[in-house]
């Protein structure tokens, strides 16, 4: 990081100290995990085979990386040129998100060196997880290519930059298709376990729920991310990005408000289809309503008000609310409402080391994000490529 620090400034900033400590703890847990086994660091057991490394790192990581394909679609497919400044930060977030998802999977699966097996060795095509694996693999490749112009501009590799610019539309379209399949298939993973997932969360529409919610999750992430970046890395943002970020916030908030309303509608249809009304009166129903009303209906209303009154500040704060709602939904599906019939003493709660591993991976993402945006033309244009972003 020394390149980013002007001479005379210390490396011992609060950010560096805290992230350093977390990375150190993460390193120790990593050694434990890979020498002593999964059982040594997690609370996973035979009845609860998936913990927060899947429920948070994978499911939330992928949902919150949706900003990449959503912004690309808005800018390049729907032709909303004013969203162009949001494309690069969103692709960076998506790329890092997916890369960290794959990293987290290395901790979670028993034999991570076999992760390429489903694609290259033995294809279990009847499994939804096969679809997930294939999409993660392909989309990570697409994101790497979509982000590569930034690196090429930084390194001043004009030829490579020119070539990648030629295929950018193909990458965008491929990325949207893969994301659609992938976001939805993460929900479809749970179709096979109707006896374990609570009926209010288990639905034939769960794949659609995951896909639709990923769109407004991605939009909210783009809005929220800009707020954080504007606060902590404001010297890296050029004027154009700052001006356009308001347009992006207003545009995405409006779209997200509509999508969230639609999402609530299909949730209601899902309950009607399976005739799950009777569960609404139970404790689980209360929890379900908390998720749907408290984290979808209400923030959707706040988005709508924010758009009507052109209150970007309100929209930005609401975006964090929506993001936490998505996290709640994914955790509910994978952990809270999963195995809901088991007695409490057989339920799962993450161990300290599991939580620290997740914190470690998030910190790693933040550090890499900062490293990149400080050096590369992400939040500001490159002087040689004034109005091209792909």
């Amino acid at each position, binding site marked *: 990081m020394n390149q980013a620090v002007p001479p005379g400034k210390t490396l011992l900033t609060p950010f560096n100290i805290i992230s350093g400590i977390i990375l150190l703890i993460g390193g120790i847990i990593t050694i434990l*995990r*890979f*020498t*002593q*086994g*999964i*059982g*040594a660091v*997690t609370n*996973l*057991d*035979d*009845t609860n*085979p*998936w913990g927060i490394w899947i429920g948070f790192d994978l499911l939330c990581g992928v949902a919150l990386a949706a900003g990449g394909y959503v912004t690309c*679609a808005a800018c*390049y*497919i*729907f*032709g909303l040129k004013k969203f162009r400044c949001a494309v690069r930060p969103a692709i960076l977030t998506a790329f890092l998100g997916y890369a960290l998802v794959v990293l987290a999977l290395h901790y*979670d*699966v*028993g*034999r*991570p060196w*076999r*992760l390429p*097996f*489903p694609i290259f*060795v*033995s*294809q*279990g095509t*009847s*499994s*939804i*997880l*096969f*679809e*997930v*694996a294939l999409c993660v693999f392909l989309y990570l490749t697409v994101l790497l290519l979509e982000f590569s112009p930034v690196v090429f501009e930084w390194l001043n590799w004009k030829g490579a930059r020119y070539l990648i610019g030629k295929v950018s*539309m193909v990458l965008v*379209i491929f990325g*949207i*298709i893969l994301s*659609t*399949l992938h976001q*939805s*298939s993460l929900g*479809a*993973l*749970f*179709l*096979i*376990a*109707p*006896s*374990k997932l609570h009926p209010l969360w288990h639905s*034939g529409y769960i*794949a659609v729920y995951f896909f639709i919610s990923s769109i407004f999750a991605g939009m909210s992430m783009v809005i929220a991310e800009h707020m954080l970046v504007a606060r902590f890395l404001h010297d890296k943002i050029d004027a154009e990005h700052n001006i356009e970020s308001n347009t992006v916030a207003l545009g995405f908030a409006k779209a997200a408000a509509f999508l969230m309303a639609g999402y609530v509608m299909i949730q209601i249809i899902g309950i009607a289809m399976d005739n799950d009304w009777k569960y609404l009166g139970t404790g689980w129903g209360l929890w379900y309503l908390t998720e749907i009303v408290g984290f979808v209906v209400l923030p959707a209303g706040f988005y709508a008000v924010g758009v009507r009154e052109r209150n970007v500040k309100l929209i930005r704060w609401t975006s964090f609310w929506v993001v936490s709602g998505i996290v709640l939904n994914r955790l509910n599906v994978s952990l809270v409402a999963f195995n809901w019939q088991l007695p409490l003493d057989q339920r799962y709660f993450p161990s300290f080391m599991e939580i620290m591993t997740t914190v470690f991976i998030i910190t790693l993402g933040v550090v890499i994000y900062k490293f990149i945006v400080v050096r590369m033309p992400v939040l500001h244009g490159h002087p040689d490529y004034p109005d091209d972003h792909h």
Partner: protein
Amino acid sequence: MGVLHDISRCIGCRKCEAACNKVNSLPPPDRPFDDLGVLAHKRRPHAGTYTVVNRFEIPNRHSPAFVKKQCNHCEEPACVSACFVKALKKSATGAVIYDPSLCVGCRYCMIACPFDIPAYEYDNPFTPEVTKCTLCQPRIEKGLVPGCVEACPKEALTFGTRDGLLEIARQRIKDFPEKYVNHIYGEYEMGGCNWLYISPVPFAALDMREDLGITPAPQLTGGALAAVPVVVSLWIVFINGIHAISKRKEQLAEEEKKAAVAQGIKTEQEKLADTVAKLKEKARADQEAAVKREIKKALEAADRQTDETEPALESSSRTPLETTPAGKKESE
């Protein structure tokens, strides 16, 4: 092939557990197999334990019921359809067989299994495996019956073909309707199992779920998988269509802008030409008027001079008169 477990005959002696441990060369248990104290708690299969017997106290019944728990070797197994590397396969004998050489360790099979059977070696850092009952496939291939069936002292376990076992089960229920509930567990559950159960008490009282339904697991995800090619092909059309429309709109806007600019320039140019022409016209008219005025002035001046010089004309020369035409010529 399969096994029929007659719960009414089971006495919970755990001999099947011991035999299973022996024939599969599993690690020795924490507590010996003749220690029946372990029955105080409900157990499930774990790494190194393919099968367990549980005891259930039934209200209004003088003796407890014992149920053996192990892989049910489903006809259309959830775990097999869930495995993304085909590490689990349904073999011709009916056994669901695990191949550790392919397993990545994602544990989706454990999520998928409605009976909570597959277990994982969480404490093995380098070669962890999923563990579960094999129906003693290696013994079946040698013409032997599964270890647990052979060991059972009460014939609570019967090995045979699935159809044959169903017949036996039906016969027993028919012969002793007061002894059994009229339900062969595993006949239809999750599309049917190769391990079948008959019981003197409702299965729900034995922690055996009766709400699993009769849909085979692969059908639960079949729809989502079938949607993949549809989504891919439709999305290609939609995305390209929307892209083309927005491109075309942009193009039209651009063309309209250009046309409007061109039209504007044309109008302005015409206006300019018009103004220039008018100005030219006006200039010429002014000039002519000026000339006319000069001529008029000159003529008037000449007239005046003529009048003034008239009296003198008769006495002097006519030179001033002659100069006037010369002045006129100059002004032209």
